Each structure stands twice: as structure tokens, then as C-alpha cells.
């Protein structure tokens, strides 16, 4: 493999792995605020205890998000130095703002949340949970601003030497792409949090243990789940897709597997893209839906890949096509499961519907897959551009860092992250196994030093 490919895999792997943690913590942060808020008003002690239980799980995932996140900020310079040199005057800004506005906030108030329950009044502890939530969502915002500028560069000036600078601060933060991507991404994070919380609730009910907690987790989980799953499709997914069709038409054509321009284009539900022959094998197509989704009319023409020069096609087209279809397919499934669960909750039957508790319990890995597939769609879809339309990916990497060196550190990360995965499984298994009612000195011993 050449150096460029290895630098890409290096960033893709470390970033994909990293995002397994923030997607849960950003979602859980919101759900913990919900639990703490109900606990303030309610006389039912299970909400406070539930917040404490999820606080423990949050803390471990937050830690892993922090330690795997540091390499992300360094890798812009280590592996993508040409990109950094030319665009640091733009993307360095939101990245620095993330550190200063979010990381300080998160780290300080997480410390208060975990250590301060006795030192703080009730409202103070609630406020520290809110601040952790705010901090983690600000962090997500600045990262998305950075990514959105790469997807859809706005508000910049460029020197003759190809050095980019911020032209308008508010233009950078107000990038429409950023706001669409942010809302879509954050509701995706809430989906992960909601599914994980529901899955643990379903597990307890199926095991007939800690059932009071199982009911709390399920109730909060499926309500948050149905809201976030709906928001994920409409309006965020819908608007994001339309905006993308306008500004990255080649990407949308590749995502949908549309090789040729078509009036009244259909949407491919299933099928295998054959890039050589430029066709979808074994297609299962719904007629005219694609034209309708993008343009609001069934007769509009959707541009196919044949409209674009081949060097501007996303290079790994099947990966893009499958990622997008996995994301959409899973999103549809989430909506169905959560819709059914909320209906049964409303009818008072959810806690006894073991046939539905099983799929809820088993579905917790799926939002991770869907969020990851969504990010692969965004990032592979941006190819062959590093900054869409401005800088090609092949221009941006560190020319002085050879393939062997990049492979060496990639292997290092693979090894280290394998260890982290094992630790994560061991600890999460223990937390869930012991449950919210575990003898305090055992289950919570960890956070006395955490």
C-alpha cells in the first residue's frame, strides 16, 4: 500500500474507533439530564439511582472517548501536514475553540458530577449534569463545523500560495451544511444512547431482575428513541440529503447507485453496484421515489454519475453505496422497533411483551453500525476531495512520512485499541451484571478513584 492509502486508513481507523464512545456519551448525557430532572421532581428514588448507574457507564465511555480523541487532534499535523499548513487558518479555529470552550467545561463538571454529589446541593449536582451535557454537545458542534467546512467550504479567503484563512467568523460557524450535519449527527447520538439504555432495561426485564429499573430504562429509552429516530429521518436526514444533492451531486449519484441521469429516477432499495458495467445487479427499485425525495416531484431529473468526469467520482464507490444503504436501512428498522415499543408502552403492554424485549435487547450494536455507516457515507462521499472542490485528498498528506512509518503507528493503534476494547467489555459487563442495586462499596468503588 502506498503512503496516501495508509495515511487515510490511519485516520479512518482511529477516528471510527474514537467515535464509538462519543456517540454514546453525547446521547447518554442528554438522557442523564432527563433522569436527573425527573428525579428532582419525583418522589420515586429509582430515577436518582438510575442516573447514578448510567453516570458510571457514562464515565468509562467518556474516559475512552477522551483518550482516543487526543490522537485525532494530533493527526491533522502528524499525518495530514500539507492539509494543516494550507487550511490551519480556517479549521484550526473550530478545533481550538473545541478545546477551550468544551473540553475545559466537560472535564471540570464531570469531576463535579462524579465526585460532588455530597459536596453539592441537589440542584448543584443537577446543574453539573447539565453542564456535562452542554459541554459534550458544544464539542460535537465544533467538530462538525470543522468537517462541514471540508464538505462545503464557505467564508474563506485564499492566498495565491494556496493558504486558506477565515473570511467571516460567523459565516464559518453559520455554514448551513454544519447545522444540517450537526442536528443529524446529534440525533444519531441520541439514538445510540436510547438503544443502549433500552437494551439494558429489556435485559433486566427478560432476566426478571431489577425490574423497577428495567422499566425506567425502557420508558426513557424508547421515548427518547422514537423522538430521535423520527428527527433523524425528518427533518434532519431529509434536508441534509436535499442540500447534499445540490452541492455534492456526484456523491449523491454514487450513494444511490445512479450511474445514468434519469427523469423520474427510482430509489434502489437493494442491489449490488457493478462499477465496471455501470449498473446495479439484482436491483429492487421503487419507481420515481428518488426524484420525489430530492426535488419534491416525481418527474424531476436526477443527475447520474455519467454527468461527472470519472476522476471526480468517489473512488471507492461500493463502500459509499453500501454504507449509505446500511444507514438508511437500519434507520428504517429503528423507527419500526421504537414505534412499536412506544405504542405498546402507551397501551401499557411493553413491559410484558417479551417478544419485543428480545429484539430491543439485541439491537444495541445496530445504532453504532448505523452512525459509523453514516460517517463513512459522509467521508467517502467527499472523496476524491479533502476540501470539497478545493483540495484533493492526494495533496494533503504528510509527504515526509513514509508508508512504513505510517503502518508502524497504525499497527500500534490497532494493538492498543484491541486492549481498550477488552477492558471496555469487561467493565461494562461488570456494571450491567451488578446492576443499579449492587452493594454500593463494590460497584461504585471504581469512581472513588475515577
Amino acid at each position, binding site marked *: 500500500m502506498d503512503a496516501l492509502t495508509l495515511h487515510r486508513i490511519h485516520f479512518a481507523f482511529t477516528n471510527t474507533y474514537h467515535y464509538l464512545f462519543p456517540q454514546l456519551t453525547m446521547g447518554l448525557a442528554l438522557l442523564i439530564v432527563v433522569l436527573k430532572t425527573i428525579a428532582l421532581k419525583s418522589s420515586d428514588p429509582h430515577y436518582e439511582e438510575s442516573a447514578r448507574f448510567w453516570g458510571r457507564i457514562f464515565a468509562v465511555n467518556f*474516559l475512552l472517548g477522551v*483518550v482516543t480523541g*487526543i*490522537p485525532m*487532534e*494530533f493527526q491533522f*499535523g*502528524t*499525518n495530514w*501536514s*500539507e492539509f*494543516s*499548513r*494550507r*487550511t*490551519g*487558518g480556517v*479549521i*484550526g*479555529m473550530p478545533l*481550538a*475553540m473545541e*478545546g*477551550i*470552550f468544551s*473540553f*475545559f*467545561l466537560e472535564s*471540570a463538571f464531570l*469531576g*463535579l458530577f*462524579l*465526585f*460532588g*454529589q455530597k459536596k*453539592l446541593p441537589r440542584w448543584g449536582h443537577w446543574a453539573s449534569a447539565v453542564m456535562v451535557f452542554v459541554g459534550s454537545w458544544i464539542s460535537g458542534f465544533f467538530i462538525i463545523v470543522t468537517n462541514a467546512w471540508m464538505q462545503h467550504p464557505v467564508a474563506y*479567503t485564499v*492566498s495565491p500560495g494556496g*493558504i486558506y*484563512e*477565515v*473570511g467571516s*467568523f460567523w459565516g464559518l460557524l453559520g455554514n448551513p451544511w454544519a447545522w444540517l450535519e450537526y442536528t443529524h449527527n446529534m440525533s444519531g447520538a441520541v439514538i445510540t444512547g436510547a438503544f443502549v439504555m433500552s437494551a439494558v432495561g429489556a435485559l433486566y426485564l427478560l432476566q426478571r431482575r431489577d425490574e423497577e429499573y428495567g422499566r425506567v430504562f425502557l420508558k426513557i429509552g424508547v421515548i427518547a428513541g422514537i423522538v430521535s429516530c423520527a428527527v433523524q429521518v425528518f427533518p434532519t436526514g431529509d434536508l441534509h440529503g436535499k442540500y447534499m444533492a445540490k452541492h455534492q451531486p456526484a456523491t449523491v449519484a454514487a450513494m444511490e447507485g445512479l450511474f445514468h441521469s434519469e427523469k423520474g429516477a427510482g430509489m434502489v432499495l437493494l442491489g449490488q453496484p457493478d462499477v465496471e458495467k455501470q449498473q446495479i445487479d439484482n436491483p429492487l427499485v421503487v419507481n420515481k421515489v428518488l426524484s420525489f425525495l430530492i426535488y419534491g416531484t416525481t418527474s424531476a431529473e436526477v443527475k447520474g454519475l455519467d454527468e461527472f468526469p470519472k476522476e471526480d467520482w468517489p473512488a471507492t464507490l461500493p463502500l459509499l453505496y453500501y454504507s449509505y444503504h446500511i444507514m438508511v436501512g437500519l434507520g428504517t428498522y429503528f423507527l419500526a422497533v421504537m414505534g412499536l415499543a412506544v405504542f405498546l408502552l402507551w397501551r401499557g403492554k411493553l413491559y410484558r411483551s417479551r417478544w419485543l424485549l428480545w429484539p430491543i435487547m439485541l439491537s444495541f450494536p445496530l445504532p453504532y453500525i448505523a452512525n459509523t455507516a453514516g460517517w463513512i457515507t459522509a467521508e467517502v462521499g467527499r472523496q476524491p476531495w479533502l476540501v470539497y472542490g478545493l483540495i484533493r485528498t492526494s495533496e494533503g498528506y*504528510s509527504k*515526509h*512520512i513514509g508508508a512504513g*512509518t505510517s503502518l508502524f*503507528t497504525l499497527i500500534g493503534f490497532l494493538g*492498543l485499541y484491541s486492549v481498550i476494547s477488552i*477492558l471496555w467489555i469487561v*467493565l461494562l459487563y*461488570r456494571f450491567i451484571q451488578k446492576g443499579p442495586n449492587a452493594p454500593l*462499596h463494590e460497584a*461504585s*468503588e*471504581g*469512581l*472513588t*478513584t*475515577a
Partner: protein
Amino acid sequence: MGILWFWIVALMLAAYVVLDGFDIGVGVVYLLVAKTEAERSQALRAIGPVWDGNEVWLLAAGGTMFFAFPLLYASSFSGFYLPLMMVLWLLILRGLSVELRGHLQDPLWRSFFDVLFFLSSTALAIFFGSALANVVRGVPIGADGYFFLPLWTDWRPGPHPGILDWYTVLGGVLAMVALALHGALYLAVKTEGGLEHRALRLARRLGPAVAVLTLVSIPATVVARPNSLHNYETHPAAFLAPVAAFVGLVLVATALKARKAVRGFAASCLYLASMLTGAAAGLVPVLLPCVGTEGQDLTIDRALAGPHTLRVGLVWWSLGIALALMYFGIVYWLFRGKVPQEADGYGH
């Protein structure tokens, strides 16, 4: 504007060294001073609520450098590729060991993280010290502003240096000993009982070692980079920094004699901050000196971002740092005083 941002980044890095320096220092002396399970838990609880926030100064400084000096960020991060990656791995391992150790009661689990905490912290101290020494000594910057350093060459600073040579190793050892002292003093401030006692005793032994190594490092710097006195000759006010460092060391010594841990820790903060200020004062307006003949020094003017970026940056930076200082004030105030010997955390 460039000079201002130079000092902003330098001060953020100094804040990182002073703050996360004591977390790292605690790791270096951890196995020596914390013997029993209760003491180890107490030592970790002394840094528990603050280490993560302290580490953020490194990220915030890195991010600030990224947008204020894009060329410096691109050149130095890629040029120091291998050591930086190792620093990342060590930061990961240090964070894991501080946080995960307490989650299981199992003695094997805890011993594993004890040793990991010690090893990762010690290696971090050495890496950071030699990183600073690399910057002071200079690197072989090419005409395009980039460089790539091998881990070692002939162990001599010269036209073809490696990451490691006698000078940068000296920097690493000095940093390890100085941060060990810093961490021991912090533990003496924050803990009680046998742990406090042993930390103070160790600090008294480390003090003279830091003094000797500091004294050696000054002529060594002049040998490694003869140019490094230039700024001091043209701006004698710069001598305030090394003088302050020595005042710091003397104050550490007198405080230790009087068994005043708080005073000793404050003096150690002064020492570390002054050492870094002194190094920065020797460099400015150079960000990364060049050795060899091919390229030229990476200066503020060459690396600086555009004026609009920097003006806007100054506004939000000031606001953000004011907020950050407020958070630090709240956290350190709430966790003021000695850490109790008995655990009293979330969930009790």
C-alpha cells in the same frame, strides 16, 4: 500580533506543564511513596477530579498553535511524528490507569494499573523533557519548512541530530526529576499520614538532584545551541526568567527544610514556569530553530496565520480562557484541602 500569539501558546504550554506536571509527577513517585492500598487510592483521589482538566491545556495549546501558526503545527507535528505518536500512546495508557484501576476490587487488576501508571507517567515526563530540548536545540528544517527526524543518529547535537542525543536525554532526565519533585510536593500538600510523610522525605532527596541537573543544563544548552544566548545578550531583561527559576529552587529548599509543603509546591510551580519562560525567551521570534544549512529557522512571521483569523481569535480566546479559569477556580476550590484517607466518592 505574532509576538502576542507566541506568548499565548507558550503560556498555555507552561500552564500544561505546571498543572499536568504534578499529575505526571505523582505517577513517577507513586510506587515509591504510596505503599498500601489505602495510600494508593488516596494518591489517585488527589489527582482524580483534576487530571483530565489539566491535560486539556495540552490540547488547547495544540489547537491554538494549529490556528495561529499553521506552518509550525504542520511542520513540527509531522517532523516529530514518531515521538508524538508515542506520547499519544502514553497519554492513553496514563488516562486508562488513573481511571480504570479502581473499578475492580481484584488485587491483580489493581497491581497491573499501578505499574502502568508509573511507567506511562515516567516515560511521559522523559518524552516531554526531550521534546522541549529538541525545540531548543533545533532541527534540520528543509527548504519547504518540513523535516523528519530519526529517533537517533550519532547521539550528538549537530547538523544531523536525532530525537535523542546526549542533550535531549539530559532534558528528559531533568524533566523526570523535576516533575517527580513537583508531584511529591503535590502529594505532600494533598494527602496525610504515611503518604504525606514519605512524599516530603522523597522531595527532600529530589531537590538537590533538580538543582544539580538545572545547573548542568545551562552550559549544556549553550554547547548544544551556541546561538541560544543571543536574545539574552540583546535583552538582558530575559535573565529574569532563569533568576526566577533559581529563586524557585531556593524557595523549594527552604520550604522543605521548614516542612511547609504548600510553600514548596508553589515554589516548584514558579521553578517550572520560569524554566519554560526562559526557554521561550531564548527562542523568540524563532519558533523552531534550524540546524544544518539547507533551510532556515521557522519564525513567527513565516508561520503566522492571517490578520483577520488572529483578530477574531483573540476575542473568543480571551472569553474562553476566562471561562476556563472560572471552571478551574470552582473545581479546585470545591476539592480544596487534604484528601481524606477514606474513600468518599460518587455512589456512596
